[in-house]
């Protein structure tokens, strides 16, 4: 059982482009690319020869190759167009499994035994596919699915037992080649740790990998060593997990069939969840009115979610119904061909109402689709003394962890003085053009080149002064980290190399105590407190006013009467960065609101409104 199975993989390069080009009637010699959200998702070999690359901007791609045919993406079409290829292969070899449109695998034993050798089997399969469908493809044979797919990309047959040496020199980025893998974080982390090849990664101890990098990395580690991704002990699914449905009346349209499939998929997943299982290989069977029995197995790298199941059923039905002569589908059955114990897919793992969270998450994603990813934010409290400084806004979907790199919002400015530093205050020039509305850039000079990542709660300056920079930060400190907070890789990797005991949160002496202002103006508003005689109130000393405020005018408005006042409280911080001193004062007005004013650069500003 420990012996890895020989797997034959058949891969058609750039399948989205091939499928799209065929559907749109683009000639194969013309360069073509499939573009999603203005980025090249896949491009044909001709386009690649012209310098078009995956991930390129559309304009850039068109500039490099003006005759480029830009095609839209359509996963349904990809799956539909792949069906003839599967049929062609199935005529020669049994047990074909589709990994995704463009890639299928089968146990190598059957075809190799029949055709005499792996070479012969590969040749026959390639010929068969080319003759029947006109699609170019490559074949690879190796031990295990992962190695077989990599071999197919290179058109190699890896001998039995040679899989680990074959994998060893390949780069770790091969772990993230498949579109569904989602291991960009892990790959990025491994490369920064200096583990650039699969061999180097595989040489790590499995226990260490499990304790440091998490569950997915364990799978990746097994892949890198040429083992089957999951431990060999597999559960046989109990028979009653299969779900089926009679379609009455029979269905001949994909959307109607997909509707039925949705209920079926939910039933399947409810049954699986009841057994604590999730499905990694899904069998889809259908019976048509013409009496034909259709059966196809889909295999997935990740355990299938209900929506993933529905997608696959829809693609498959689309393919079957598009053949035309099959007639209508009158019976549908989903079989979990292979299951693993469910882990991360379970809802409510942390004792929270997982469903409500998922619902809220969906709502926020929908708003992000409307307005852009940065439009929906949640707040994280950070260190600081100004009401605006204490808040960091994180776009929904990014890590909220306080130690994460602060995005271009207010950066923490911090205490360096002794224990008696109650009177320090960030001051300094107002950045004339803050790069984001809502982020006051007081006290932070643009581009002062500080390393942007600090252990939780510690200001950057302290780190610089004391040399307390965690190991993860060092490679970054030379160049400013791009301020885009959507780099999950970096945030997730933060715990590694950080001391296990968290740093205690700093107390920020000199903060105005609670209650805090309920309204914090996006930009500080100019204010002018006046004394009884109508003369402006200024500062005689950092902690002394020239006169008691009697009225105050905010932002050029009418002067309002002051009922009570307190302060000023001086604060000095970041003097090492050239920031000036600041004094703050609270004013209660006659209408029941109160203002928090800050005096800096010779004027008063409203930094908070207690309304």
């Amino acid at each position: 059982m420990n012996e890895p199975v020989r797997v034959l993989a058949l891969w058609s390069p750039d399948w989205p482009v091939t499928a799209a080009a065929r559907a749109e009637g683009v000639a194969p010699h013309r360069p073509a690319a499939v573009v999603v959200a203005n980025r090249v998702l896949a491009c044909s070999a001709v386009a690649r020869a012209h310098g078009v690359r995956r991930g390129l901007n559309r304009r850039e791609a068109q500039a490099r190759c003006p005759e480029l045919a830009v095609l839209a993406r359509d996963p349904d079409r990809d799956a539909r167009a792949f069906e003839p290829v599967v049929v062609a292969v199935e005529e020669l070899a049994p047990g074909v499994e589709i990994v995704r449109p463009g890639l299928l695998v089968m146990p190598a034993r059957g075809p190799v035994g029949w055709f005499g050798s792996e070479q012969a089997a590969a040749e026959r399969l390639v010929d068969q596919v080319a003759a029947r469908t006109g699609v170019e493809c490559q074949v690879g044979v190796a031990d295990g699915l992962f190695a077989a797919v990599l071999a197919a990309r290179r058109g190699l047959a890896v001998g039995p037992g040679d899989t680990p040496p074959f994998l060893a020199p390949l780069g770790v980025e091969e772990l993230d080649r498949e579109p569904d893998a989602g291991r960009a974080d892990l790959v990025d982390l491994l490369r920064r740790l200096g583990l650039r090849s699969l061999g180097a990664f595989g040489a790590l101890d499995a226990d260490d990998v499990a304790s440091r990098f998490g569950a997915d990395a364990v799978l990746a580690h097994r892949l890198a060593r040429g083992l089957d991704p999951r431990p060999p002990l597999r559960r046989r699914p109990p028979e009653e997990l299969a779900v089926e449905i009679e379609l009455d009346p029979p269905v001949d349209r994909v959307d109607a069939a997909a509707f039925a499939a949705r209920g079926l998929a939910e039933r399947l997943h409810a049954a699986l969840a009841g057994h604590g299982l999730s499905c990694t290989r899904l069998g889809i069977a259908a019976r048509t009115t013409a009496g034909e029995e259709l059966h196809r197995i889909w295999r997935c790298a990740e355990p299938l979610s209900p929506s993933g199941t529905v997608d696959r059923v829809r693609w498959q039905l689309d393919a079957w119904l598009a053949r035309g002569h099959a007639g209508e589908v009158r019976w549908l059955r989903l079989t979990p061909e292979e299951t693993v114990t469910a882990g991360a897919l379970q809802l409510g793992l942390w004792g929270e109402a997982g469903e409500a969270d998922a619902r809220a998450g969906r709502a926020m994603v929908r708003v992000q689709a409307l307005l852009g990813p940065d439009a929906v934010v949640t707040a994280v409290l950070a260190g600081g003394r100004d009401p605006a400084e204490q808040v960091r806004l994180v776009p929904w979907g990014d890590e909220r962890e306080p130690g994460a790199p602060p995005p271009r919002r207010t950066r923490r400015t911090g205490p360096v003085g002794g224990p008696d530093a109650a009177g320090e205050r960030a001051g300094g020039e107002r950045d004339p053009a803050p790069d984001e509305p809502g982020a006051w850039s007081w006290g932070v000079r643009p581009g002062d080149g500080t390393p942007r990542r600090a252990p939780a709660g510690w200001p950057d300056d302290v780190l610089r002064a004391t040399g307390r920079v965690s190991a993860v930060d060092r490679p970054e400190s030379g160049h400013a980290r791009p301020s885009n907070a959507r780099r999950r890789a970096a945030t997730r990797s933060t715990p590694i190399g950080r001391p296990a005991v968290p740093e205690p949160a700093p107390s920020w002496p000199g903060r105005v105590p609670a209650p805090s202002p309920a309204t914090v103006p996006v930009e500080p508003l100019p204010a002018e407190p006046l004394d009884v005689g109508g003369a402006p109130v200024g500062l005689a000393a950092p902690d002394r006013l020239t006169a008691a405020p009697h009225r105050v005018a905010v932002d050029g408005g009418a002067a309002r009467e002051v009922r009570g006042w307190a302060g000023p409280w001086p604060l000095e911080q970041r003097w090492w960065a050239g920031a000036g001193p600041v004094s703050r004062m609270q004013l209660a007005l006659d209408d029941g609101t109160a203002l928090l004013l800050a005096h800096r650069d010779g004027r008063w500003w409203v930094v908070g409104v207690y309304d």
Partner: protein
Amino acid sequence: MAEAAVRRMPGGGSRADAASRLELARGVLRGLEDRAAGIRPVGGPAADGRVLPVAGPLARLLPAGGLRRGSSVAVVGGPGATSLLLALVAEASAEGAWVGVVGRPELGLVAAAEAGVRLDRLALVPRPGRDLLAVTVALLDGMDVVAVAGGGVRAADRQRLAARARQRGAVLLALGPWPGADVELSCADAQWQGLEGGSGRLCARRVRVELRGKGLGPGRGGRLLLPSRGGGPGGAPEVVVPEPAAVVAG
């Protein structure tokens, strides 16, 4: 039509005063809007009996003892409005409800955290721009409470949002004028405590919260501390004093 209605109003005698006429016309219009909003295909907010909890002093004030799911609540602008809004959502948020805030880039989030709002369950859409309606509808689908800046939303859109909230069992909180809301809260007589001439600091604020709404009877309200020393709402024992038809200030 408004003219005719104005003439029938009992206070129409002082018609010579243009300002008071305008005020009257506005009142009539608001009444009409209220009546139009009252015609509903579905039952009122009572159709969905679930209630989101609010902090003690406010709970004794609100008719259902909390925010009824499916209802719309307006917090009339003015001193204390934002604090009141935060106090309303705090308890529900602490118990795990999701709260969305649309179109308030200047919301004081430290104050929100002090009031007891869980920031990891507070979704902010500071600048919805022209998509305010679409964004609010989307959030109503997934959140338990959605607060929206009320100014400048048309009557038809207000009804659409209220209907959506009713349908999804969410609470629609409007900050600012929102004719047609089930409950309308406002603050009056705000007085800060803790400040003396040049010494002390802002500690707490005594306000009278007034409540208006359909089927509530006239003049319901009570005194409480908003914010109290810790940040959230608080109150002395004699907090809720239902007052008979009090004079409404601003």
